[in-house]
C-alpha cells in the first residue's frame, strides 16, 4: 500500500505576525516555520505507524512551495517517509494547491492520501476534499482513528456530540485530527537519514487559483492576563463581574 502524506509549512504558533505591502501580505522575515501540526502529529505519524505494522509499503511526502520550504519537508522526512516531493510553486489558494497535488498523485497512484484536517495558518480545511474530488476518490474528514486491512479502511470520525465509524474501500483521502496518533520527536537516526532520502522537485501543472487575498487584518490585541491567587475567590468573582462582565 502506497501512502501520500500532504505536508504544509506554517508559521510557528508563537510567531508575531507582521503585515507588509499595505497589509496585502505577511512579512516572512524572522518567522520560524514548522510543519503544520495536523499534518505532522496526526497524518504523518499515523502513516509511519501503518508502515511499522507492515500495512504500508511506501510513504511519500508532498508539499507545495518554493525552495524555502525544504527545511520543513526534510524535518518531516526525519520523522519518517521514503521520499519527498516539492511542487515548485507558491500558493495560498486551496483549489490551486489541491490541483498541483492531484496532478502528481494521479501520475504515481496512491492507495491512501492523508492530510491534516486544516492548516493552522489559512485554516481553509478544504484541500483534502478538493483533492478527493479531483482524483475521484472517496473522502473521510476529521478522522480520529484509521485501521486498514485487505484494501478496506475502517475510520472513526468525530461528529457532533459523539463518534461515527465508517468503512470504505481504498483508494481514499482522509483528513486527520487529534487522537489518531501520538506526536513523535525526530531521533538522531532519522535526522541524519533525512539528508540522504530523495527530495524531488516537480514543476507545477497548469492550474489557476480561484481566489486572491485582497488584504489581511490583525485581530485586536488581547486583554492582559490577570493573575489571581487561588485563595482569593472573592477577587476572581469581582473581576468576572466588573471587568469581564460575564457574570
Amino acid at each position, binding site marked *: 500500500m502506497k501512502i501520500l502524506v500532504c505536508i504544509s509549512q506554517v508559521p510557528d504558533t*508563537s510567531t508575531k505576525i507582521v503585515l507588509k505591502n499595505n497589509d496585502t501580505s505577511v512579512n516572512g522575515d524572522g518567522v520560524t516555520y514548522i510543519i503544520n501540526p495536523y499534518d505532522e502529529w496526526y497524518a504523518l505519524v499515523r502513516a509511519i505507524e501503518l508502515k511499522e505494522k507492515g500495512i504500508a509499503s511506501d510513504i511519500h511526502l508532498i508539499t507545495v512551495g518554493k525552495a524555502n520550504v525544504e527545511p520543513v519537508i*526534510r524535518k518531516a522526512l526525519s520523522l519518517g517517509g521514503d521520499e519527498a516531493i516539492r511542487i515548485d510553486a507558491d500558493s495560498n489558494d486551496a483549489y490551486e494547491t489541491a490541483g498541483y497535488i492531484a496532478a502528481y498523485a494521479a501520475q504515481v497512484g496512491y492507495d491512501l492520501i492523508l492530510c491534516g484536517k486544516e492548516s493552522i495558518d489559512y485554516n481553509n480545511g478544504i484541500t483534502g476534499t478538493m483533492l478527493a474530488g479531483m482524483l475521484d476518490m472517496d473522502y473521510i474528514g476529521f478522522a480520529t482513528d484509521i485501521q486498514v486491512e485487505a484494501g478496506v479502511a475502517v475510520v472513526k470520525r468525530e461528529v457532533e456530540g459523539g463518534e461515527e465509524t465508517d468503512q470504505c474501500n481504498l483508494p481514499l483521502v482522509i483528513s486527520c485530527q487529534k487522537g489518531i496518533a501520538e*506526536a513523535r520527536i*525526530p*531521533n538522531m537516526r532519522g535526522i*541524519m537519514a533525512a539528508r540522504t532520502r530523495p527530495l524531488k522537485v516537480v514543476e507545477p501543472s497548469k492550474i489557476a487559483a480561484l481566489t486572491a487575498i485582497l488584504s489581511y487584518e490583525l485581530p485586536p490585541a488581547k486583554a492582559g492576563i490577570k*493573575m489571581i491567587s487561588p485563595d482569593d475567590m472573592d477577587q476572581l468573582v469581582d473581576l468576572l463581574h466588573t471587568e469581564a462582565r460575564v457574570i
Partner: protein
Amino acid sequence: MNATEPMKAIKGGEFLIRETAADSIFIPEEWNEEQLMIAETCTNFLAQQVTPNLQRIDEQEEGLMKHLMDEAGALGLLGISVPEELGGFGKDFKTSMLVTEKLGAGHSFSVAFSAHTGIGTMPILYYGNEAQKQKYVPKLASGEWKGAYCLTEPAAGSDANSGKTRAKLSADGKHYLITGQKMWITNAGFADVFTVFAKIDEDENLSAFIVEKDFEGLSLNTEEHKMGIKGSSTRQVFFNDCKVPVENLLSERQNGFKIAVNILNLGRIKLGGGTVGASKDVITASVRYANEREQFGRAISKYGAIRYKLAQQAIRTYASESAVYRACQNMEEATEMLIESGLDETKAKLKGTEQYAIEAAILKVHASEVLDYVTDEGVQIYGGMGYSAEAPMDRAYRDSRINRIFEGTNEINRLLTVDMMLKRALKGELDLMGPAQKVAGELVSIPDFGANDDDNLFSKEKKYIANFKKAILMVAGAAVQKLMAQLGKEQEVLMNLADMLIELYVSESLQLRVEKLVSLRGEDACKEQLDIMRVYINDAAEHLAKSGREALNSFAEGDERRMMLMGLKRFTKTEDFNTTQARRNIAAKLIAENKYCF
C-alpha cells in the same frame, strides 16, 4: 608574525597577546539545518518529557530519571559525540555543545544527562583500550547502561590527587581490590558503570578503573539531601575490597590524575554551554511573567527598573554564549590540525581540548556566574511569586547554585586560569614577556592621544579590547616581577588577574561575534546585538579597572604604583554613551518577542 595582525586561528591563551579575525570564529547564528533539527529535538524532548515532570523528578520518583535517560537514549541524544563505529553519531564538538545547551534547561535531568555523556562516558571513550571501548561505550551511547564518575572523597575535593582510596592486586593477580569511599557521585543511584579513581599501593598518583555496579564489594549510601538539583541522584559510593578485573584498569597505572584533569577540561566548557541554555530559559520565563504581571495598571515590563533587569540578563547570557562557541570552534580546529599531523582521533581530541584549558576554565566561571545572576534577577522580577515554591524561579534559583561548585569550584578555576597562563609563558609556549615589556615601555612614554579610526563600526570596541590586553599585561607583569615565587600564595591577586582575563576573553568574543553577524546580516538587522556589545564592554572596562586597582594597590608602591594606576586608567577608559537607552532597546526587543530572542 606581526603581533597585531589578526590571526585565523589562535592557540590556547593567545587571546591575551593576539587579535582574532572576526570571520574566523563560529557564531551560533550559523547553525546549519541538521544542527537546528537536533536542537529542536532536544527542546521538544524537554517540553514533552522533562518540564511537565520536574516536580516528580525532584521527588526522585522511583525509576523516573532512569526512564527519561532511556528515552533520551532512544532519541540518540546520549551518543551525539560518540563515534559511529561505537554506536554513536560521530557529531562534532559544536553540535554536542548545542545539545548540552538545549538540554541545559532541564534542571536535574540536565545534570544526569551531562554526567552520563561527559564524565560517565568520556573516560572510557578517550582512555579505554579497544576491548574496553567495545564492551562499554556502545551501551553507554545507547543508554542501555548509565555512567558515573567517582573522583571526590570526603577529604579530597579540590585537591583531588590526595584521595585515600586504595587499590591492591589480589593474590592471584587477576583482580585489583579497591577500598575507599567516594562522595557527591552524580547518577550513583542508577549507574551501571563507574569510572573510579584510586591509588595503587603507595603510588604518588591516581589510577583509574572501570567498575561495574555488580562487582563484589561495591555499595551505595542513601541519597544526599541537597539545596537544589534534588532530582539528580547523588550518593556516596563505598568500595570494600571491591573486585575489579585487572583488564579494567583504564589507561596506564598512575595516569588517573591526567585523565581526571583532561575530562574536567571537557566538562568545564560543557558546563558553560549548559548554563547558557538554562539562562536563556530563565530569561524567557522572566520576560513572559513581566509581560503578564500588572501593577499600578500596567504590565511590569513597561517599567524601567524591570527593563534594566531583562536587558542585563540577556546581555550577559549573549556574551557568555559568544565565548562558549568561539572556544568550541578553536578546540575543533586544533583537533583537526592534530589529526592532519598524524595523531589518532582520540588523542587529537584530548590534546585539542587541553590546548584550550584556559578558555574552558574561563567559560565555566563566567557562564555559571551569569546563570546565578540571571536566576537571582528572575526571582526579583517574579517578586513575591519568585519566592514561592509554586513558581518556576524557586527551582531555577536553587538548581543554579551548584554550577559554581562542581567541575572544580570557580575559585579553583580562577586560580587555574592564571596558573596555566603563567606556566605556558614560562615554558615558552606563550610569549607574554615581549608584549608585557612593550606595555611597560608605553607607560613611560607619551600617551597616544591619536583619534580612533572612526570609519569602522567596531574600531572603538577593538581599541578598548586592545587596551584591556595592555591592562592585564601590565598588572600581571608587575605582579610576577614584584611577587615572584610569592605570587602563587597571593590568591587575592590571582583572583583579580583571573577576573580581568575572563572579562577580556568574553568581551573580545562578543565583539567578534557581533562583527561577524553584522557582516552576514547588515547593521540594521543587528541593532540590539550592537547595543549588547557596547553595554557589555563598557561594564567590562569598569570591572577590569576595579580588579586591576585592587591588585596593584596590594603589591605596588610609590611612584611606580602611581604610574601603573594612571596606565590602568588609560587602558580601561571608554567613551561615555547612553547605556540606559541601549538597555531599553534590548529590553524592548525581548518584551516584543516575549522570549529570549538573541
